[in-house]
């Protein structure tokens, strides 16, 4: 009986709207989804899209009253005011009517409004679904709300959307105890398809799903609750995703565990942001860890903050260490080759001296920044020393100060000596002539007596080149 009234009500509604509707045909058309949708698409699209909220409320009350009373006479109110529920997928969404807020205050009204909005949606299969809900729903009001809110027929224009979203919010709150600040209109049941980010796309996807959904519902009324339940959960997840994706929060996204069916949804959409941002975050953390380690290694890096400056310091330090090695090897090469490298003695004393010498490289490092002028002064000093001593080598200590400067100078002027070394060790950078001469003057010549000879040698080298 209710069914008849409902159907009649449905049949009654479109009659004054469009001439193309027949009562008889409409009865059948209510059952047949395709024709219904097609019919009502046209009818709805023909309707003007804007409507006042008060009129909506009036419509709702009227219809509900009529449905309860069993009479359809008051469907007069519909033609002018049923427009907000027109399938506005073909029209632009009407502006949200302000008194909507008042509507949401009354939970009972919300319930009814939800049912009615379901009734007024594009696909009248939604109506049948809503009817089924209404049928079975005396006791299980929250369940109804649940169903209603997740029903596909709630595929309305934006005006009705807001109402529905309000309703849904309430139902969601009471049903799922979710903490989220739910976004306005994105509580759409997803059937596992990708839900796009924009609301327009969401609308269209909703519509798509709304078409397919009623079939499921008609087939499986018993499973509807569980499905809706699932969809609710998934709605939450999707909603969360939607929010996040809309807000593009890449940093603090709470990676809630989605239900298994929907992992692929999350992964697909989140791939642009989630895995990328996560991977980047991991990478950045790794890099910062290692920079901290390097900070400990490189002396004098504690004051420096920031990647670029740290890297500069590290580069300088590595360069200075390499120059030190080169200089030491130079000095070692100048040491009298006749010396016996007694391994055991050296190792013994090396171990004893290790602690002492740890300070030396650090001394030498800050001296790198000393000016080249020092270098030349020391060269002259050493020349004097050489002239004074017949010693084969220079005293070591004063040279330590020069090492840094020499290292720096050598480091700067290193590249060009390839012509001298191409036959010997091609892979190493060469010296410039000036450096060679300075080295010679520094006393790498074993005998001061041969000093001039060495200088002649260098001049000969010049000529040979």
């Amino acid at each position, binding site marked *: 009986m209710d069914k008849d009234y409902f159907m009649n009500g449905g049949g009654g509604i479109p009659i004054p709207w469009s001439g193309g509707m027949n009562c008889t045909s409409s009865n059948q058309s209510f059952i047949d989804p395709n024709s219904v949708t097609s019919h009502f698409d046209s009818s709805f699209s023909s309707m003007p899209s804007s409507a006042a909220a008060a009129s909506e409320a009036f419509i709702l009350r009227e219809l509900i009253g009529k449905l309860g009373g069993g009479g359809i006479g008051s469907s007069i109110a519909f033609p002018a005011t049923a427009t907000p529920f027109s399938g506005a997928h073909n029209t632009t969404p009407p502006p949200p009517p302000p008194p909507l807020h008042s509507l949401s205050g009354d939970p009972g009204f919300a319930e009814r409004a939800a049912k009615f909005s379901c009734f007024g949606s594009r696909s009248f299969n939604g109506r049948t679904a809503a009817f089924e809900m209404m049928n079975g729903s005396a006791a299980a009001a929250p369940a109804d709300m649940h169903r209603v809110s997740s029903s596909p027929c709630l595929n309305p224009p934006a005006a009705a959307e807001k109402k529905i979203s309000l309703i849904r919010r309430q139902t969601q709150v009471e049903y799922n105890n979710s903490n989220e600040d739910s976004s306005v209109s994105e509580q759409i049941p997803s059937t596992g398809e990708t839900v796009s980010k924009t609301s327009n796309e969401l609308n269209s996807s909703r519509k798509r799903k709304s078409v397919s959904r009623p079939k499921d519902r008609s087939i499986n009324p018993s499973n509807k609750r569980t499905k809706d339940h699932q969809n609710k959960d998934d709605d939450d997840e999707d909603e969360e995703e939607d929010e996040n994706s809309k807000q593009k929060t890449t940093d603090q996204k709470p990676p809630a565990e989605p239900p298994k069916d929907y992992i692929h949804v999350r992964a697909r959409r989140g791939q642009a942001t989630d895995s990328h941002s996560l991977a*980047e975050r991991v990478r950045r953390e*790794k*890099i910062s860890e*290692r920079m901290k*380690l*390097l900070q400990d*290694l490189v002396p004098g890096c504690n004051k420096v903050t920031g*990647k*670029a400056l740290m*890297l*500069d310091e*590290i*580069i300088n330090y*590595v*360069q200075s*260490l390499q120059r030190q*090695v*080169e200089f*030491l*090897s*130079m*000095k*070692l*090469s*100048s*040491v009298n*080759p006749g*010396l016996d*490298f007694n*391994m*055991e003695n*050296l*190792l*013994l*004393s*090396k*171990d004893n*001296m*290790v602690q002492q*010498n740890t300070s030396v*490289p650090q001394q030498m490092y800050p001296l790198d920044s000393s000016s080249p002028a020092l270098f030349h002064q020391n060269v002259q000093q050493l020349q004097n020393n050489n002239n004074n*001593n017949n*010693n*084969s*080598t220079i*005293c*070591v200590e004063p040279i330590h100060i020069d090492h840094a400067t020499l290292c720096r100078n050598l480091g700067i002027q290193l590249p060009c000596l390839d012509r*001298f*070394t191409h036959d*010997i*060790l091609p892979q*190493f950078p060469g*010296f410039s002539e000036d450096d*060679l001469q300075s080295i*010679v003057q520094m006393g*790498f010549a074993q005998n001061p007596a041969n000093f001039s000879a*060495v200088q002649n*040698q*260098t001049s000969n*080298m010049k000529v040979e080149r």
Partner: protein
Amino acid sequence: MTDHKNHLPSTAKPSSIKTRFAIKFLQAMKKLNNNNKNKNTMSEKHKRYLAIRAASHASMASAVGPRRAWSRAVLRKIPHHQKQLHYYSLMNKQRIRRRRNIRRNRIFLITRGNPNNRENYDHEEDEENEEEEDLRELVPGGKEMDFCRLLNETAHYIKCLRAQVQVMTNILDHSSPSNFLYK
């Protein structure tokens, strides 16, 4: 001469990088000195200098072993005749075998960890590229590593360079004071 490797004094730290490096370097120096023609000309000195420098790098790399990317890169650079000069001959075969495997891995690493694959990253990464490139040039084998790996290798390389400097200064100090006796 007996194999000095087996004659470590009791106070020596067993198989730290420093001792390993010191042993190898001193052996290399010995060989160089034995091969020295004693001409004391500039070119000879220069050769000696370069040889000693190469010896220090090579012995450091061999002391580290093929575990580190930078040491592998250094070991690769050494021409074969030099290896014998620097006391590689005994370990050559093992190293060649290891290096063959490592070369295979290296190709894999190049394709995987190539810094050129970082197109997806933001522009922020471009800002530090200059210093990164400098660092890559400094650290041997740094051109084929991604940045994280590069930082790791840099840290180890710095440690080893420091050890190298310390050992060489030690050797120098011990070799030169004997000359002071002749003052």
